[in-house]
C-alpha cells in the first residue's frame, strides 16, 4: 500500500464532499433539525398521569393485591425485571417502582416531583405509617425523550451518511467511468477502498462531533459515561456501517439498484434498531431480527454509555460484534470488488 496514493484519494473524496453544498447541508442540517424538533415536541415537561411500575409474583394489578393499586388516575404497569424498573425510576421514566413479591417495598427518585407526589398517594392508600412499604431511594436526573433519542438520531444520520456516502458514491463512480479511469493507474483496489472508508470516517466524526456539541449547547445533554468510550462506540459503528455500504457497491453497476438495496437495508435497521422508539414489549421475532443489525448494537451501546454511564466492559460485547462484522464485511467486499 502506497500512502501517497491513498492520501491523494482521501483528499479528493473529502474535497468532493465539502464542496458539494447540498450534500454537506443535508449531512449537517438533518440531524440537527431532528434533535431540535424532538426537543420542541417533547420539551413540554412530563405527562400529567402518574406511572408506577409493579413487581408481583403473579395475578392482576388490582386493589386485592395492595390497596395502592386501587388508586384512580395512577397508571400501574407490570414490571418483570427489578434492575430495569429501578433504572426507569432513576431516569424518571417511572415515578415509582413497587415490589409486592415479598414484604412490600418501593423505589422513588429523590429529584422527581412526581415521585414525591406518588409517595404521598401511596401513604394515603395504606392509611398508617406502620403499613407503609419499605422505601428505597434512588438518585438520577430525569431522562427526557430527547436524551434517549439523541444516540438514535446520531446513529441514524451516521447510517445514511455511511451507506449512501460510500455505497452509492462508488456505484456512481463505476457508472460514470471514474473507477475505470482509476483502474488504469497504479492505484490498487485495497488503497481505493481504504481511502473511501477513511474519508467517510473523517466526515462522520466531524459531523457527529458538531451535532453532539450543538445539541449539548442547545438542550444540555445527559452524559453519565466516558466521552472517549462514546467516541469509540460511534467509530466502531460507523466503520461497520461503511463496510455494509462497501459490500452493496462492490459489483453493482446501476445507481437505481444501489439505491433500492440501500433502502432495503436502511429502513429495517432504522425501525428495528430502536433508534427512534423502544422495541420493549415488541414481538419476540422483531426483537430477534433487531439483533442481526449492527445499528441495534450501536444505538444500544451509545445509550448505555450516555444514560447509564456504562464502562468498556459493559459495552465490550457490542463493540466486539461491530468490529467482528466489520472485518468479515470488509474482507468480503475487498474480495468481490470490481472496478468495472
Amino acid at each position, binding site marked *: 500500500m502506497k500512502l501517497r496514493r491513498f492520501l491523494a484519494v482521501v483528499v479528493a473524496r473529502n474535497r468532493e464532499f465539502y464542496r458539494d453544498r447540498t450534500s454537506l447541508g443535508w449531512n449537517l442540517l438533518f440531524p440537527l433539525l431532528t434533535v431540535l424538533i424532538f426537543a420542541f415536541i417533547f420539551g413540554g415537561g412530563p405527562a400529567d398521569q402518574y406511572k408506577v411500575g409493579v413487581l408481583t409474583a403473579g395475578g392482576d394489578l388490582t386493589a386485592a393485591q395492595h390497596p395502592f393499586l386501587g388508586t384512580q388516575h395512577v397508571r400501574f404497569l407490570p414490571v418483570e425485571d427489578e434492575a430495569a424498573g429501578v433504572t426507569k425510576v432513576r431516569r424518571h421514566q417511572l415515578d415509582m417502582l413497587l415490589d409486592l413479591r415479598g414484604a412490600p417495598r418501593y423505589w422513588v427518585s429523590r429529584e422527581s416531583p412526581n415521585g414525591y407526589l406518588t409517595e404521598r398517594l401511596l401513604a394515603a392508600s395504606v392509611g398508617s405509617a406502620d403499613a407503609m412499604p419499605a422505601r428505597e431511594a434512588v438518585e438520577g436526573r430525569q431522562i427526557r425523550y430527547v436524551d434517549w433519542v439523541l444516540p438514535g438520531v446520531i446513529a441514524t444520520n451516521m447510517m445514511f451518511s455511511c451507506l449512501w456516502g460510500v455505497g452509492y458514491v462508488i456505484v456512481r463512480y463505476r457508472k*460514470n467511468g471514474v473507477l475505470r479511469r482509476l483502474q488504469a493507474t497504479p492505484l490498487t483496489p485495497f488503497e481505493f477502498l481504504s481511502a473511501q472508508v477513511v474519508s467517510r470516517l473523517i466526515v462522520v466524526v466531524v459531523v457527529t462531533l458538531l451535532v453532539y456539541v450543538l445539541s449539548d449547547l442547545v438542550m444540555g445533554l445527559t452524559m453519565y459515561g466516558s466521552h472517549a468510550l462514546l467516541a469509540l462506540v460511534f467509530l466502531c459503528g460507523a466503520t461497520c456501517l461503511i463496510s455494509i455500504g462497501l459490500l452493496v457497491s462492490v459489483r453493482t453497476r446501476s445507481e437505481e439498484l444501489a439505491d433500492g438495496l440501500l433502502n432495503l437495508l436502511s429502513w429495517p435497521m432504522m425501525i428495528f434498531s430502536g433508534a427512534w422508539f423502544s422495541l420493549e414489549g415488541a414481538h419476540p421475532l422483531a426483537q430477534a431480527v433487531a439483533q442481526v443489525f449492527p445499528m441495534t448494537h450501536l444505538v444500544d451501546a451509545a445509550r448505555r454509555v450516555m444514560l447509564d454511564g456504562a464502562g468498556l466492559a459493559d459495552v465490550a460485547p457490542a463493540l466486539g460484534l461491530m468490529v467482528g462484522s466489520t472485518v468479515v464485511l470488509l474482507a468480503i467486499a475487498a474480495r468481490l470488488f470490481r472496478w468495472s
Partner: protein
Amino acid sequence: MTALLEANDLVKDFPGVRAVDGISFAVPAGSCFGLLGPNGAGKTTTLEMLEGITTPSAGGVRYRGGPLDRGYREAIGIQFQATALQEFQTTRESLALFAQLYAHSADLDELVERCQLGSFLDRDTRKLSGGQRQRLLLAIALVNDPELVFLDEPTTGLDPQSRRNVWQLIDAIRRAGKTIVLTTHYMEEASQLCDEVAIIDAGRVIAQAAPRALIDAHFPGTLIRVPQAALPAGLPLPAGAERRGELIEICTADAEQTMHELLAVGVPLTELRVAAPTLEDVFLKLTGHGLRG
C-alpha cells in the same frame, strides 16, 4: 524497429458473442499505431486488452517482450473515450491527484503548457468545454510521462478547430519519442497521425499497413465517380469499376484516358468527380460498410 507492444492471437468472448477473434500485431517503439473499425468491430475491447484492463479469453499481450505486470501501469498513459473525473475538482487539482497516483510524474508546469491548460487551470472540471476537457484528459494520460500512450477516439465530438488542436498535441507527443496506440473514426486523423493502421472488422484484422501503402495497394490510381443515372443505359461497366450505391466508382491508372472514354459515350462532364482515394475508400472496399456501421 523493435516492437514495444505485441498482441498475440487475442480472443475475447462475452456471453453469446466473440468480440475479438484472434488479433495479432506488433507496435514498434516510437510509432503511432491506429486501430480503425466501425462501432462493434472490437477495437475498444482490443484496446482494453492492450491496456491490461480487460483479460483476454485467449492469447496474450507482451510489453517489451514480457507479459504485463504491475509495473506496466506505471509505464502507460490512457485517455478513455468516455470517462468522468471526480467532481468538485479544478483542472489543477485533477492533474495533481493523478500525478500522486504514480511513482514518477511529469513536470506539471510543462504539461500544463504543452496541453494548453493555463486558461482554465482553476476552473471546475465540470465547466470545461469539450476541447478543454479532451486536453485535460490527454494531460492526465501523460501525467506519469509514459512510454506508451493509448488514446481511444481522442477527438470524437470535437469541432474541427478543437480536433486539429488535439492532432497537433498528439503529433508533438509522437515527436517526443512516445509510442501511441489510438483508435479513431476519422480517416483523415488516422492518415495524418498514424505510421501504421490495422483495420478491424467483426473482431479480426482485415488489413494492416501504413495508410499510404494500404491506399496504394487497394487503389493503384485515381478514383472517378459517376452517378449510375448519368451512364447511358445498356453500357457495360468500364474495367476497374464498382457500384457504390447510386455511384459507379472507377479506379484508373490513367484518369485522363478514362474521362475521355466516358465523355465519348455521352456522360456529361459535370457529372464526373475525380478524387484521390482515401483510407475511407479502402475501408469501404474491404468491409462493404461505412466506418460508423
